[in-house]
């Protein structure tokens, strides 16, 4: 481990992206991710990079599309309402098999919602958001250090699979300061991009990045080809953290900042002799479904800062081997450990 520096989550993403070879950042201001743009605009000119404040999130994501098509490591960041606007472009990026990293520092919704931290964009992140049969790889860190590791992973995974990667955080993670070590982050692994539109230099056949296929069977073929890639990712990339699952009567799942609340709750529960365990998904897509099939609790509990979205994935993953409960707050309210503890006690009375 190298030297640790104290850094805000949003700024740490920026530094990690730069260290991962990202030199093209296209943004549009929105709370609570603004510090990331502010960091990038200061740094990029000093290292020969590009920071551009676009006229809208629509334009920003399409600039990413252009940069990614040209073969460079490109990034954009926003928060919920801005991600809705980017969704058009994200669908095209997925369709063009263009690698890039999209950061969503989620705030409460729907509509303009609020500016407090939330996790209510889980469906949007994991189910698409834009139109068509596609997926993003969705990574959900729970500390500033993990934010940094996953930013580096995001660029590498995106290049490797040619799938856009979304880094899903929340306002708390973005704003909080924690010690972080950059020396231990994954090295950039650059993929060859023979498909990129870089100009032929009269040395190769032209490259075309296209997403329109008017022949139904041709479009189907392309979509199914991509689906095969998704199957590989589903097989190889399920990431999670789990502990205390072997004897657990109840397994609590949460991701991102909520998992820090859950850790405190689990300590309280264990101290009281209640057998609570933890599965914390780190990849939200692909969802770490395998581990849910290996555990045998009496109940699952999903703790989220939403009205309960991941709860559906847990149900699918555990194949109803036990009931799946939900506990959470939304609109920007963070659940307390006590609320989780109480919910667990209530559930365990029910399931015995």
């Amino acid at each position: 481990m190298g030297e640790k520096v104290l850094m805000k989550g949003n700024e740490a993403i920026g530094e990690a992206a730069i260290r991962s070879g990202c030199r093209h950042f296209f943004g549009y201001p929105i709370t609570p991710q603004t510090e990331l743009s502010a960091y990038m605009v200061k740094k990029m000119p000093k290292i020969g990079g590009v920071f551009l404040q676009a006229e809208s999130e629509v334009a920003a994501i399409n600039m990413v599309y252009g940069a990614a098509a040209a073969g460079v490591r490109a990034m954009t960041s926003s928060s919920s309402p801005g991600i809705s606007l980017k969704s058009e472009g994200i669908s095209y990026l997925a369709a063009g098999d263009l690698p890039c990293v999209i950061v969503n520092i989620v705030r409460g919704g729907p509509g303009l919602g609020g500016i407090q931290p939330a996790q209510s964009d889980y469906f949007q992140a994991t189910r698409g958001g834009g139109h068509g049969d596609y997926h993003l790889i969705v990574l959900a860190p729970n500390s500033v250090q993990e934010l940094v590791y996953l930013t580096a992973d995001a660029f590498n995974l995106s290049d490797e699979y040619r799938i856009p990667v979304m880094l899903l955080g929340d306002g708390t993670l973005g704003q909080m300061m924690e010690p972080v070590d950059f020396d231990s982050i994954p090295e950039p692994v650059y993929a060859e991009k023979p498909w990129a539109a870089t100009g032929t230099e009269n040395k190769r056949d032209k490259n075309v990045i296209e997403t329109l296929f008017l022949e139904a069977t041709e479009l189907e073929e392309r979509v199914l080809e991509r689906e095969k890639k998704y199957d590989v990712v589903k097989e190889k990339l399920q990431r999670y953290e789990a502990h205390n699952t072997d004897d657990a009567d109840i397994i609590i799942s949460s991701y991102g900042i909520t998992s820090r609340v859950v850790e405190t709750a689990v300590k309280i529960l264990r101290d009281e002799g209640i057998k609570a365990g933890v599965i914390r998904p780190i990849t939200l897509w692909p969802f770490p479904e395998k581990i849910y099939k290996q555990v045998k609790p009496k109940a699952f509990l999903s703790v989220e800062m939403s009205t309960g979205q991941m709860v559906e994935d847990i149900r699918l993953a555990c194949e109803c081997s036990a009931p799946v409960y939900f506990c959470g707050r939304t609109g920007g309210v963070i659940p307390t450990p006590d609320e989780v503890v109480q919910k667990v006690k209530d559930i365990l009375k029910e399931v015995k």
Partner: protein
Amino acid sequence: MSKTIYAKPKSLTDTTFRYCPGCSHGIVHKLVCEVIDELDIQGKTIAVEPVGCAVTAHNYFNFDVVQAAHGRAPAVATGIKRSLPDRIVFTYQGDGDLASIGTAETVHSATRGENITVIFINNTIYGMTGGQMAPTSLPGQVTQTSPYGRDTHTQGYPVRICEMLATLDGPSYIARVSTDTVPHIKEAKKAIKKAFENQINGKGFSIVEILSTCPTNWGMSPIEAMKRLQDEMIPYYPLGVYKDVEEVNE
């Protein structure tokens, strides 16, 4: 000994145009490709094609092409140009694409003085989707979505892009040309060439609006369509150079 009198530009593929007879898209494709050949930039050029009838341009352009979402071509071109500043990047867009759904991207790439070239095909209609009213449709023009003629009280007035963009400091070159006669087509080529030369010389945003025909959706023969362009479009959309900044755009 035979002498070459005419050769197809090498920047055009051998694929036969699938545009309708009398459509200006074919003419403009050829002009653009001739210019690219003359400037010897085929290997450096990256086109951004629109959503509109020219969504198939990559079948004809013999250089790298990126297909953009509807209206987003200038943003996509910005992303490419900022990544590969020594490449020549141009967009090719229809009026629905550039002047309606993509207005924000058009205006802001122009005002940034983005060092790209924009080829704007104004045929006063949504060609690809079967002839709906465009932002550029003339007052009274009958289209699928203005069956009683464009009613300016409820459907507003046409957008004059060149005049609008000429109010900005960012663009370096703005011209409106036409495809109706041989002299006009020659003028059009000169303007297109200048718009590419400007980019090569780092002068920033250049746009050439090309008044064009869509005989199919106008419900006219190619000859009638050319006549409409001359009699109705040119008076409403005066030809000429709207801006020409000789010095480098900072």
